[in-house]
């Protein structure tokens, strides 16, 4: 039941010719408008997740809802297909329920605002933006309970509704929604910010169509999409083979003791079209690690990876979508059935990018990156302080960026676009916390000619009793290395009590009670290494030992004995003699069963058990 678009003018858009210069001018102007959306949002939002970390995604789409500028691809198609009402001039839409929009947004924390842009009675564009809300109610602070069994435990679900109906604001709706969250002040500010951003972009679109004429503007958006289609068609033909290529990777566990979960994708080309098939992916989880993957969103991920890996000069939009077909089994981890819980989808979302990298680089190892887009580590800390004030923190951490064809992976940096860390002085000023340590973990980046980036070791000292939750992955299945590079180190979390006792705690964990004075060591994974570590310049390895990024013991993985060139020479010869003549393309570390057997000894945590599915799910 698709949406009904109401236009008071029935005059069709004329096909007009457009010269390449005007086209580039319009594209440029739309890109500027998108930058302006980000700037507006960051400057007015209040939750640290958006204002400090940039967890938000803008887009400007053509009149059919196809993204012309943006980054995650259009979520408008999914909305139009699932919305039963009308779209009219003066309307603005608001939604958060993934099941209402075919997963176009993937958990209820992401609030999406959609603004249809009308001119002279005709729909000429859409502007839209979503941002992650720090709390939308539900069973836990932060609204992302890893142990949820259904989406009803994950806070307020907003189906597509109109905040503005033909120019009239629906105050009651917003009052109702804000009543559901623990942080109405943040949510209100963030929603205002999303709205302001969409309005800014709409104003720019109207100015452009004023300047160039409505017909020309619409023709330009068509041509921009077509231009991208042509470029991607060429790129696909030259880079993707007709022989199927498969790649699989794992989510370590579901936070309920089961894991790992397999995600598998097979790619091949038929004529101009690429088929991406997720057959072989495990069935959905009973916990919240499911990731409702929208097919169009995955097309965009694929397109962007193609572009970044093979030809970064191309600008991306939705124009190439019909060149790609995505098949995702119903009832799988990537297409769970309602009302499966979805809030913990970040691990699978991150893993999708590692899988894309592995798929695309297999036939062209010189373009292959190692693994490290592994998760988006979350920390939640909430409680009531000594003055009776409620406090609540949701923070996103980072790990190591993988080794790349162009060089080392940066240490402790973000793989997510636009994200930044929260200044520790900000945390200490506004939350009952002291950050005792904020550094990277030596040797955690996989050894390689290009070293994987180190993970981060951040130590939180809690100054008030409270409740902590942790969401992280890559603690069980290591991030793989490539072309001879070694896997990165795995994540771990250690609670050091005020009395001096220490305990390893889980990487997916709810409701951990902490006392004032307790310290949490939040340690993330390192990126995989790229290329043969024995080819790395020993002087560089020794320099990094001096920098504390690699230890003297860790240098041996590069065949380097610090301060002794002859011993280095000998050690390298010894390692070379003992290893196979050619390195495997991927180094995943030990097999899953070996990892399981050694899990307790190596990680301090019991091994996850193989998930068991009810028969109707097992066949996905």
């Amino acid at each position: 039941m698709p949406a009904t678009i109401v236009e008071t003018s029935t005059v069709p858009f004329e096909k007009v010719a457009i010269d390449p210069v005007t086209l580039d001018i319009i594209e440029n102007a739309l890109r500027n408008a998108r930058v302006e959306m980000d700037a507006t949002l960051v400057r007015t939002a209040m939750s640290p997740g958006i204002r400090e970390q940039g967890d938000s995604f803008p887009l400007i789409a053509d009149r059919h809802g196809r993204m012309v500028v943006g980054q995650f691809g259009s979520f408008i198609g999914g909305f139009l297909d699932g919305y039963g009402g009308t779209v009219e001039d003066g309307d603005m839409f608001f939604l958060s329920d993934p099941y209402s929009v075919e997963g176009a947004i993937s958990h209820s924390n992401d609030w999406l605002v959609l603004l249809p842009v009308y001119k002279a009675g005709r729909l000429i564009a859409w502007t839209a933006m979503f941002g992650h809300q720090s709390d939308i109610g539900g069973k836990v602070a932060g609204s992302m309970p890893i142990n949820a069994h259904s989406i009803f435990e994950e806070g307020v679900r907003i189906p597509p509704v109109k905040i503005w109906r033909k120019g009239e604001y629906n105050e009651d709706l917003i009052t109702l929604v804000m009543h559901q969250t623990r942080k109405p002040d943040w949510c209100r500010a963030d929603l205002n910010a999303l709205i302001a951003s969409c309005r800014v972009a709409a104003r720019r679109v109207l100015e452009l169509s004023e300047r160039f004429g409505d017909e020309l503007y619409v023709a330009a958006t068509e041509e921009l999409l077509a231009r991208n289609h042509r470029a991607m068609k060429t790129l696909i033909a030259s880079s993707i083979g007709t022989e199927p290529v498969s790649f699989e990777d794992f989510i370590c566990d579901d936070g309920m003791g089961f894991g790992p979960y397999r995600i598998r994708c097979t790619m091949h080309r038929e004529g101009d079209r690429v088929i991406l098939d997720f057959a072989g992916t495990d069935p959905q989880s009973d916990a919240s690690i499911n990731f409702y993957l929208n097919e169009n969103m995955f097309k965009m991920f694929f397109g962007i990876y193609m572009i970044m890996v093979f030809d970064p000069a191309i600008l991306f939009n939705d124009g190439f979508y019909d060149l790609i077909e995505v098949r995702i089994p119903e009832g799988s981890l990537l297409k769970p059935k309602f009302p499966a819980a979805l809030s913990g989808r970040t691990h699978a979302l991150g893993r999708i990018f590692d899988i894309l990298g592995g798929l695309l680089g297999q036939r062209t190892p010189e373009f292959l990156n190692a693994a490290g887009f592994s998760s988006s580590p979350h920390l939640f800390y909430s409680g009531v302080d000594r003055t009776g004030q409620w406090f609540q923190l949701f923070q996103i951490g980072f790990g190591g960026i993988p080794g790349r064809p162009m060089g080392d992976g940066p240490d402790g940096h973000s793989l997510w676009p636009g994200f930044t860390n929260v200044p520790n002085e900000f945390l200490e000023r506004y939350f009952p916390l002291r950050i005792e340590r904020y550094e990277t973990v030596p040797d955690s980046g996989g050894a390689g000619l290009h070293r994987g980036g180190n993970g981060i070791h951040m130590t939180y000292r809690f100054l008030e009793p409270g409740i902590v939750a942790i969401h992280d992955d890559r603690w069980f299945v290591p991030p793989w290395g490539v072309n001879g590079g070694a896997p990165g180190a795995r994540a771990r979390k250690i609670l050091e009590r005020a009395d001096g006792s220490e305990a390893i705690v889980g990487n997916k964990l709810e409701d951990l009670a902490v006392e004032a004075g307790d310290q949490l060591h939040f340690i993330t994974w390192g990126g995989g290494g790229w290329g043969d570590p024995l080819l790395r310049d020993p002087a560089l390895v020794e320099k990094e030992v001096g920098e504390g990024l690699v230890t003297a013991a860790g240098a041996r993985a590069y065949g380097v004995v610090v301060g002794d060139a002859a011993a280095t020479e000998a050690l390298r010869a010894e390692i070379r003699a003992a290893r196979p003549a050619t390195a495997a393309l991927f180094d995943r570390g030990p097999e899953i069963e070996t990892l399981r057997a050694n899990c307790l000894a190596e990680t301090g945590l019991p091994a996850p058990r193989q998930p068991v599915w009810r028969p109707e799910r097992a066949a996905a």
Partner: protein
Amino acid sequence: MAYRLGVDVGGTFTDLLLLDSAGGRFWRHKTPSTPADSATGILTGVAAICDQAGIEPSAIGTLLHGTTVATNAVLEGKGARVGLIVTRGYRQVMQIARSFVPGGLAGWIVWPKPVPMAALQDTVEVDGRIDGQGAEVAALDEASVRAALELLKARGVEAITVSLTNAYLNGDHEARIGALAAEIMPGTPVSLSHVVLPEMQEYERTLTTVANAAVRPVVGRYVRSLRAKLRDTGMQGRIALLRSDGGLMSSEKAEEHPVSLLMSGPAGGVAGALWVGRNAGLKNILTLDVGGTSTDVALIENLEPRRTRTTEVGHLSVRASSLDVKTVGAGGGSIATVPELTGALRVGPQSAGAVPGPAAYGKGGVLPTVTDANVVLGYLPENLLGGAFRLDRAAATAAVQTIADALGIDLMAAARGIIDIVNENMFGALRMISVQQGYDPRDFALMGFGGAGPLHVNAVARLMGSWPAVSPVSPGVLCALGDATTRMRTEAARSFARLARDTSEADLLGALETMAAATVAELVAEGVPEDEVTSLFEIDVRYEGQAFEVPMTITPDVLRADGIAGLLARFDEEHRRLFTFNMASPHEIVNLRAVALGRTLDLPAAPLEPGDGSPAAAKLRNHELWMDGRMQPAAIYDRAKLRAGDVIPGPAIVVEMDSTTLIESGHAGTVDAVGNILIRPEAH
């Protein structure tokens, strides 16, 4: 001693402008820059311009100087080797930075991570801790400090930076380390973060302090060498440097706080635009400073340029007040390309630079640039005035033809396409500082300067709706003019971080007045008479919970009269203008700054002899150029022969020593009383 000399050192040329502040006369001179030691080029220029004016260097009362020495030290990584002392657990603060990777999704695949300004081997930790409210949690362990300093000494660092966690609230530990450093490493300059930048955010504060320490020796050497050389010529006057925020500071102060010089170069142009604006009766101005590789734009409202709290240099964002200058990679040397897969026309950000330069320069460049397109279209006549420099039209044509072929369009359409795209890029930058900040560009004039600004100013003004488009007198040396005509400025800043409702007016005023007293004393110490100093307060306000604050400028008198309530009302108004809404959340007063300013020089421009309205006497020859899709007859004029009141109908080209002004068809340029050309659409 009535002479003021403005000196602007650019990448290619050093511009000088000598002002006789009594008579209002001025002389200008251009001499090649000497990158190895800019002072050499300056001295050559000083000798030449004094000759021209018939004075001795000793007659120069003040030398005012915009310099990119600090900027280049940062961009080229040629700063001093800095040892950094941090709180235990924070050794990698510069390595991790803000964890930000530019370039969007998958941008990490192609991002080259910059090397931190303070090497990790030269970064050491000490024990001792201040908490988030400024209280001492653990005393400073002096043994660890001594060990750290001995280590840095042994490693041979050239400067010390101390940046401890929460030092913006309590600088005691840093001060103690500073004292120990003076004892253990006497003679090594020490920068303390709570002195350089007493503001929250450990990475930004550390980076700013490190940047300051790194450029200090470089700037110090340069300033001392320049001073010595000038003294040798008999010049005994004051030497002042232009700060990033458009004010002047003494060269001695600049040696201590060089991080305030990072935008010194572009600030000169904005200061020059202010002087031109005052003389031309224009109060609201957008500036368009077009160079060879990039264009700088800024906004001036009511003769006050907009400032920001961050200075962007290369990939670094340093916390230091600066004019809000946006830079876009679009200039005369920007290269046009047509990527094979998309078939789109792109211009810049790659630039042919000075070497090999545009094809038209005949120095070996073959790639099509904006300058080549200007030559092909006839906007840049082959034989520039003076005849020293002849453009190679055939080479420009061959280069632009490659674009025409790739796009399947004719030569002229391709050339105009290149110009349209580069103008659009400039337009984009101008929008960021105007429309995006809530300003309507139709309320502003657009002033084009730098080598190529006056070539593009008419077309960009058409896109913006900003009239008149201004080609100022001597656009090629406007930066030097700005250096010569701006005023002294200094400021002090500190964090405040209190809710407005919990703040008494007495507390706020008390804090500000303490800071004001210090800044006034500083200017007086630099020789500004006390009765010429004016004070301003800047108060950063936001809604509690927001990350960005809005700086509110207010005079002490207004703050006393209207109180905090008046300040908040003005903030609400500004927030609505910027972001279209207000909030019910409480207001937070985040940072305080006190600014002390010297007197504005009242230097009128020399009046130009009135003419009869016709530019005929200045006409050099007839010409032909491509505009509006066809070849059109046009005329070329000599700017030196234009008279006040002359009206030049477009299309026309006005040439002078170092710049060319293009007046488009359908527009006319009027020469004002002091020689600026004000271009407007003919219908106006």
